[in-house]
Protein backbone atom coordinates (compact mmCIF):
# COMPACT_ATOMS: atom_id res chain seq x y z
CA UNK A 1 0.00 0.00 0.00
CA UNK A 2 1.33 3.41 -0.94
CA UNK A 3 2.36 5.66 1.93
CA UNK A 4 3.05 9.36 2.37
CA UNK A 5 6.69 8.67 3.15
CA UNK A 6 7.10 6.62 -0.02
CA UNK A 7 5.50 9.40 -2.05
CA UNK A 8 7.79 11.98 -0.48
CA UNK A 9 10.86 9.90 -1.32
CA UNK A 10 9.50 9.48 -4.83
CA UNK A 11 9.44 13.24 -5.18
CA UNK A 12 5.76 14.06 -4.83
CA UNK A 13 4.85 17.34 -3.18
CA UNK A 14 2.77 15.63 -0.53
CA UNK A 15 2.30 18.78 1.53
CA UNK A 16 0.68 20.50 -1.43
CA UNK A 17 -1.42 17.49 -2.38
CA UNK A 18 -2.56 16.96 1.21
CA UNK A 19 -3.51 20.60 1.57
CA UNK A 20 -5.64 20.32 -1.53
CA UNK A 21 -7.36 17.35 0.08
CA UNK A 22 -8.02 19.17 3.36
CA UNK A 23 -5.15 17.28 5.00
CA UNK A 24 -7.10 14.03 4.81
CA UNK A 25 -4.33 11.47 4.29
CA UNK A 26 -6.66 8.56 3.54
CA UNK A 27 -8.49 10.58 0.93
CA UNK A 28 -5.27 11.95 -0.58
CA UNK A 29 -3.73 8.51 -0.98
CA UNK A 30 -6.94 7.26 -2.58
CA UNK A 31 -6.80 10.15 -5.03
CA UNK A 32 -3.17 9.32 -5.82
CA UNK A 33 -4.22 5.78 -6.67
CA UNK A 34 -7.01 7.05 -8.88
CA UNK A 35 -4.73 9.51 -10.64
CA UNK A 36 -2.20 6.80 -11.40
CA UNK A 37 -5.03 4.72 -12.87
CA UNK A 38 -6.16 7.57 -15.13
CA UNK A 39 -7.09 6.15 -18.54
CA UNK A 40 -5.44 9.11 -20.19
CA UNK A 41 -2.08 7.41 -19.68
CA UNK A 42 -3.23 4.68 -22.09
CA UNK A 43 -4.74 7.28 -24.40
CA UNK A 44 -1.46 9.18 -24.43
CA UNK A 45 0.53 6.07 -25.32
CA UNK A 46 -1.93 5.11 -28.07
CA UNK A 47 -1.86 8.59 -29.51
CA UNK A 48 1.92 8.76 -29.46
CA UNK A 49 2.16 5.33 -31.11
CA UNK A 50 -0.24 6.49 -33.79
CA UNK A 51 1.56 9.79 -34.30
CA UNK A 52 -1.63 11.65 -33.40
CA UNK A 53 -0.37 14.89 -31.88
CA UNK A 54 -3.85 16.29 -31.24
CA UNK A 55 -5.02 13.23 -29.32
CA UNK A 56 -1.74 13.14 -27.43
CA UNK A 57 -2.18 16.79 -26.46
CA UNK A 58 -5.71 16.10 -25.26
CA UNK A 59 -4.56 13.19 -23.12
CA UNK A 60 -1.59 15.09 -21.71
CA UNK A 61 -3.79 18.10 -20.96
CA UNK A 62 -6.23 15.88 -19.08
CA UNK A 63 -3.42 14.25 -17.11
CA UNK A 64 -2.12 17.66 -16.18
CA UNK A 65 -5.30 18.20 -14.19
CA UNK A 66 -5.52 14.93 -12.30
CA UNK A 67 -1.80 14.48 -11.69
CA UNK A 68 -1.44 18.12 -10.77
CA UNK A 69 -4.24 17.89 -8.23
CA UNK A 70 -2.35 15.21 -6.29
CA UNK A 71 1.04 16.87 -6.84
CA UNK A 72 2.84 13.88 -8.33
CA UNK A 73 5.71 16.12 -9.40
CA UNK A 74 7.89 13.53 -11.22
CA UNK A 75 4.95 12.88 -13.57
CA UNK A 76 3.49 16.36 -13.56
CA UNK A 77 6.59 18.14 -14.79
CA UNK A 78 7.06 16.11 -18.00
CA UNK A 79 3.28 16.18 -18.54
CA UNK A 80 3.38 19.97 -18.48
CA UNK A 81 6.32 20.03 -20.86
CA UNK A 82 4.64 17.62 -23.24
CA UNK A 83 1.37 19.57 -23.14
CA UNK A 84 3.15 22.74 -24.20
CA UNK A 85 5.20 20.94 -26.83
CA UNK A 86 2.08 19.48 -28.45
CA UNK A 87 -0.18 22.51 -28.12
CA UNK A 88 -1.60 23.44 -31.50
CA UNK A 89 0.39 20.77 -33.33
CA UNK A 90 -1.05 18.41 -35.94
CA UNK A 91 1.99 16.26 -36.51
CA UNK A 92 4.57 14.48 -34.35
CA UNK A 93 7.00 16.85 -32.66
CA UNK A 94 10.69 16.20 -31.87
CA UNK A 95 11.16 15.58 -28.20
CA UNK A 96 7.59 14.46 -27.59
CA UNK A 97 8.46 10.78 -27.64
CA UNK A 98 11.16 11.21 -25.00
CA UNK A 99 8.81 13.17 -22.76
CA UNK A 100 6.10 10.55 -23.14
CA UNK A 101 8.58 7.87 -22.13
CA UNK A 102 9.58 9.93 -19.08
CA UNK A 103 5.92 10.20 -18.10
CA UNK A 104 5.30 6.49 -18.42
CA UNK A 105 8.50 5.61 -16.54
CA UNK A 106 7.60 8.01 -13.72
CA UNK A 107 4.14 6.49 -13.57
CA UNK A 108 5.53 2.95 -13.39
CA UNK A 109 7.84 4.00 -10.60
CA UNK A 110 4.92 5.46 -8.65
CA UNK A 111 2.86 2.34 -9.20
CA UNK A 112 5.65 0.24 -7.71
CA UNK A 113 5.78 2.24 -4.46
Amino acid at each position, binding site marked *: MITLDALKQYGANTAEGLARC*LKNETFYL*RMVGMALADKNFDKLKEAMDAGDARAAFSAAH*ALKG*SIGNVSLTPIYEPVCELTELLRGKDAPVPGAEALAERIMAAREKALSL
Partner: protein
Amino acid sequence: MTGRRTEEKAAELDRQRIGKIPDHCLSGSEAAFSGRRLLLVEDNIVNMEIARLLLTQAGFAVETAENGQAAVDMVSASEAGYYHAVLMDIQMPVMDGYEATRTIRALDRRELAEIPIVALTSNAFREDVEAARAFCALGHKTRLIGLRRAFGAIKRL
Protein backbone atom coordinates in the same frame (compact mmCIF):
# COMPACT_ATOMS: atom_id res chain seq x y z
CA MET B 1 -21.09 9.48 -11.92
CA THR B 2 -24.58 10.56 -12.90
CA GLY B 3 -28.03 10.36 -11.50
CA ARG B 4 -29.99 12.12 -8.82
CA ARG B 5 -29.81 11.25 -5.11
CA THR B 6 -31.52 12.72 -2.11
CA GLU B 7 -29.52 15.23 -0.15
CA GLU B 8 -29.27 12.92 2.87
CA LYS B 9 -28.18 9.92 0.88
CA ALA B 10 -25.61 11.99 -0.99
CA ALA B 11 -24.17 13.33 2.25
CA GLU B 12 -24.00 9.84 3.77
CA LEU B 13 -22.33 8.41 0.71
CA ASP B 14 -19.83 11.23 0.81
CA ARG B 15 -19.05 10.51 4.45
CA GLN B 16 -18.56 6.83 3.71
CA ARG B 17 -16.45 7.54 0.67
CA ILE B 18 -14.28 10.22 2.23
CA GLY B 19 -14.00 8.93 5.75
CA LYS B 20 -13.66 11.03 8.85
CA ILE B 21 -12.34 14.49 8.17
CA PRO B 22 -10.09 15.75 10.96
CA ASP B 23 -11.91 18.40 12.97
CA HIS B 24 -9.30 21.04 12.32
CA CYS B 25 -9.92 20.70 8.60
CA LEU B 26 -13.58 21.65 8.77
CA SER B 27 -14.09 25.08 7.31
CA GLY B 28 -16.68 26.22 9.81
CA SER B 29 -18.66 27.75 6.98
CA GLU B 30 -21.14 24.89 6.60
CA ALA B 31 -23.99 27.00 7.89
CA ALA B 32 -23.47 29.52 5.12
CA PHE B 33 -24.07 26.97 2.39
CA SER B 34 -26.25 24.48 4.22
CA GLY B 35 -29.21 23.37 2.17
CA ARG B 36 -27.76 24.57 -1.13
CA ARG B 37 -27.41 21.94 -3.80
CA LEU B 38 -24.84 22.18 -6.53
CA LEU B 39 -24.48 20.24 -9.75
CA LEU B 40 -20.78 19.54 -10.28
CA VAL B 41 -19.97 18.73 -13.89
CA GLU B 42 -16.53 17.18 -14.36
CA ASP B 43 -15.28 14.28 -16.46
CA ASN B 44 -12.10 13.57 -14.51
CA ILE B 45 -12.81 11.48 -11.43
CA VAL B 46 -9.87 12.82 -9.40
CA ASN B 47 -10.83 16.43 -10.06
CA MET B 48 -14.45 15.59 -9.31
CA GLU B 49 -13.72 13.84 -6.01
CA ILE B 50 -11.49 16.64 -4.74
CA ALA B 51 -13.98 19.29 -5.74
CA ARG B 52 -16.76 17.29 -4.13
CA LEU B 53 -14.73 17.01 -0.91
CA LEU B 54 -14.23 20.74 -0.70
CA LEU B 55 -17.82 21.55 -1.54
CA THR B 56 -19.28 18.97 0.82
CA GLN B 57 -17.12 20.16 3.68
CA ALA B 58 -18.35 23.67 2.98
CA GLY B 59 -21.89 22.43 3.57
CA PHE B 60 -23.18 22.01 0.05
CA ALA B 61 -25.16 19.04 -1.14
CA VAL B 62 -23.40 17.92 -4.31
CA GLU B 63 -24.65 15.97 -7.29
CA THR B 64 -22.39 15.13 -10.18
CA ALA B 65 -22.45 14.71 -13.91
CA GLU B 66 -19.56 13.39 -15.98
CA ASN B 67 -20.13 15.46 -19.10
CA GLY B 68 -22.10 18.35 -20.46
CA GLN B 69 -24.90 16.25 -21.90
CA ALA B 70 -25.57 14.58 -18.54
CA ALA B 71 -25.62 18.03 -16.96
CA VAL B 72 -28.15 19.30 -19.48
CA ASP B 73 -30.32 16.25 -18.86
CA MET B 74 -30.20 16.69 -15.09
CA VAL B 75 -30.91 20.42 -15.17
CA SER B 76 -33.73 19.94 -17.69
CA ALA B 77 -35.38 17.33 -15.50
CA SER B 78 -35.04 19.31 -12.29
CA GLU B 79 -37.57 21.42 -10.47
CA ALA B 80 -36.94 25.17 -10.36
CA GLY B 81 -34.59 25.95 -7.51
CA TYR B 82 -33.48 22.37 -7.00
CA TYR B 83 -29.94 23.31 -7.97
CA HIS B 84 -28.57 26.49 -6.48
CA ALA B 85 -25.91 26.61 -9.20
CA VAL B 86 -23.97 24.52 -11.67
CA LEU B 87 -20.19 24.18 -11.46
CA MET B 88 -19.06 23.34 -14.97
CA ASP B 89 -15.78 22.05 -16.27
CA ILE B 90 -15.12 23.32 -19.78
CA GLN B 91 -13.22 20.58 -21.55
CA MET B 92 -15.21 17.36 -21.41
CA PRO B 93 -16.08 14.54 -23.82
CA VAL B 94 -19.53 14.06 -25.37
CA MET B 95 -20.46 17.70 -24.73
CA ASP B 96 -18.09 20.37 -23.43
CA GLY B 97 -18.95 22.96 -20.83
CA TYR B 98 -19.44 25.72 -23.32
CA GLU B 99 -21.98 23.76 -25.36
CA ALA B 100 -23.72 22.53 -22.22
CA THR B 101 -24.07 26.09 -20.95
CA ARG B 102 -25.38 27.28 -24.30
CA THR B 103 -27.94 24.47 -24.28
CA ILE B 104 -29.07 25.22 -20.73
CA ARG B 105 -29.41 28.90 -21.56
CA ALA B 106 -31.71 27.94 -24.44
CA LEU B 107 -34.11 25.85 -22.32
CA ASP B 108 -37.77 26.80 -22.64
CA ARG B 109 -38.28 26.97 -18.88
CA ARG B 110 -36.86 30.35 -17.99
CA GLU B 111 -36.19 29.49 -14.35
CA LEU B 112 -33.94 26.65 -15.48
CA ALA B 113 -32.37 28.57 -18.35
CA GLU B 114 -31.23 31.26 -15.93
CA ILE B 115 -29.60 28.95 -13.43
CA PRO B 116 -26.24 30.37 -12.29
CA ILE B 117 -23.37 28.56 -13.98
CA VAL B 118 -19.79 28.82 -12.81
CA ALA B 119 -17.13 27.42 -15.10
CA LEU B 120 -14.20 25.95 -13.23
CA THR B 121 -10.78 26.21 -14.69
CA SER B 122 -7.21 26.76 -13.62
CA ASN B 123 -6.03 27.20 -17.18
CA ALA B 124 -4.71 30.44 -18.51
CA PHE B 125 -3.83 29.65 -22.07
CA ARG B 126 -5.07 31.52 -25.06
CA GLU B 127 -7.71 29.06 -26.13
CA ASP B 128 -8.99 28.87 -22.55
CA VAL B 129 -9.19 32.64 -22.33
CA GLU B 130 -11.09 32.73 -25.61
CA ALA B 131 -13.41 30.00 -24.37
CA ALA B 132 -13.84 31.98 -21.16
CA ARG B 133 -14.90 35.11 -23.04
CA ALA B 134 -17.39 33.08 -25.05
CA PHE B 135 -18.57 31.38 -21.87
CA CYS B 136 -19.16 34.64 -20.01
CA ALA B 137 -21.05 36.00 -22.99
CA LEU B 138 -23.73 33.41 -22.33
CA GLY B 139 -25.38 35.43 -19.61
CA HIS B 140 -24.79 37.59 -16.56
CA LYS B 141 -25.03 34.59 -14.27
CA THR B 142 -22.31 32.74 -16.14
CA ARG B 143 -18.87 33.12 -14.69
CA LEU B 144 -15.42 31.63 -15.13
CA ILE B 145 -13.50 31.02 -11.97
CA GLY B 146 -11.10 28.77 -10.16
CA LEU B 147 -12.48 26.42 -7.51
CA ARG B 148 -10.82 28.22 -4.62
CA ARG B 149 -12.61 31.44 -5.54
CA ALA B 150 -15.82 29.61 -6.32
CA PHE B 151 -17.09 29.61 -2.74
CA GLY B 152 -17.29 33.37 -2.58
CA ALA B 153 -18.87 33.53 -6.00
CA ILE B 154 -21.48 30.90 -5.13
CA LYS B 155 -22.28 32.67 -1.88
CA ARG B 156 -23.05 35.84 -3.83
CA LEU B 157 -25.30 34.11 -6.37
